[in-house]
């Protein structure tokens, strides 16, 4: 009888210590979202709620119906939201702490967009050359605000 009470006491102490430790840790810290320059294609509140629906709808439209001149292209997301190292190299948006990863890690959602899609922007002129001075804009129908990010120096354009 005494033995059983002893085990129970030890268990209670362990549980109490665990609770104290958890309180001490506090809640999981909120993600720190890197800010992109300029304005997004929709207000932030809308993007937070609907970006996954937009991407899903648009991927169907682009691949199967060639609606390529939409604002909601994943390449545009990457072009705006990519961060750069001090030396100007683009950091993949799905790298730890980067724009896509920071929230999805926080909520425990695994995204596989970047198993296929490029997580850094690239300048098409450097890859087999599309050719022609206006071809880069034409090829991607990039919104005016984003064009500089494809065209300027570095692997993926400057900040």
């Amino acid at each position: 009888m005494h033995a059983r009470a002893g085990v129970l006491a030890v268990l209670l102490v362990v549980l109490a210590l665990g609770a104290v430790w958890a309180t001490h840790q506090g809640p999981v810290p909120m993600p720190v979202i890197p800010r992109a320059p300029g304005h997004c294609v929709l207000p932030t509140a809308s993007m937070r709620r609907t970006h996954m629906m937009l991407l899903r709808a648009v991927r169907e439209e682009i691949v199967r119906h060639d609606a390529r001149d939409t604002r909601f292209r994943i390449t545009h997301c990457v072009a705006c939201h990519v961060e750069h190292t001090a030396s100007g190299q683009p950091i993949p948006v799905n790298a730890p702490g980067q724009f896509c990863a920071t929230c999805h890690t926080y909520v425990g959602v695994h995204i596989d967009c970047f198993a296929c899609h490029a997580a850094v922007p690239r300048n098409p002129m450097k890859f087999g050359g599309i050719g022609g001075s206006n071809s880069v804009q034409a090829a991607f129908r990039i919104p005016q605000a984003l064009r500089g990010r494809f065209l300027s120096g570095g692997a993926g354009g400057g900040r």
Partner: protein
Amino acid sequence: MNDERRGQPLIDAVAGDEAPDSARRRLLKMAGAAVALTLAPGVTVLARDLVLKGGRKARSPVRYGLLIDANACKTGCDACVRACQDYNGLSHDPGPDNAQWIRKVTITDPGTGFTRSFPVMCQHCEDGACVDVCPTGASFRRPDGIVLVDKHRCIGCRYCLMACPYKARSFVGRVVTDQRPWAPRGKGTAEGCTMCVERVMAGKQPACVAACQKAGHKAMMFGNLHDPKSAIAVRLSKVATTTIRADLGMGPGVHYRGI
């Protein structure tokens, strides 16, 4: 090039995209026209040509295609292959598990010694076997004739690799990094020549065609086969050309001269 429809959604450019009702009628017509041979219970051979003739769709105003002149193609030149690899982010290494969207093929007549070298890629068939066999609808033909893999739907079953008589499809068996934003590709999906759809939609030629012209051979020509005024259609009306394995009745969009 068909410049007028640049920038418009494709769906608007193609009149008479099939309604469900007409699809059903087509199926009925196919059933009527098909010659079926029952070998054993549950084993039926359909005469493919007859099946397809019954269900031929209305002619689309746009059908992108290629004309490859094997007389002008140089043995040993692989400018088109390298341009494809560079633009679409494929490896230059011809390893057994690396994707291959375009390859140079050399044919020799053993009797006469006549040799020709020319590139072979997805033939962008009108009735491609890849589209027929795909269990998820990932392999599809756009109304302008370009055959693509919708990788959002592809489950990587590789049926299209088996079905394609041109061996034009590849399977990505390893994790891919360093993709081009204009050519997404990843492990577990089938892929093939996209006719550089991003470039074409921007009014440019596919990378292979541009590279061939840059190399000075001018063995490749791209354009709208269904526009009688396009350079490719004019050329096709003047010189003798063929398609590879025309007997299969799949209606390739890639025409060859001199083979």
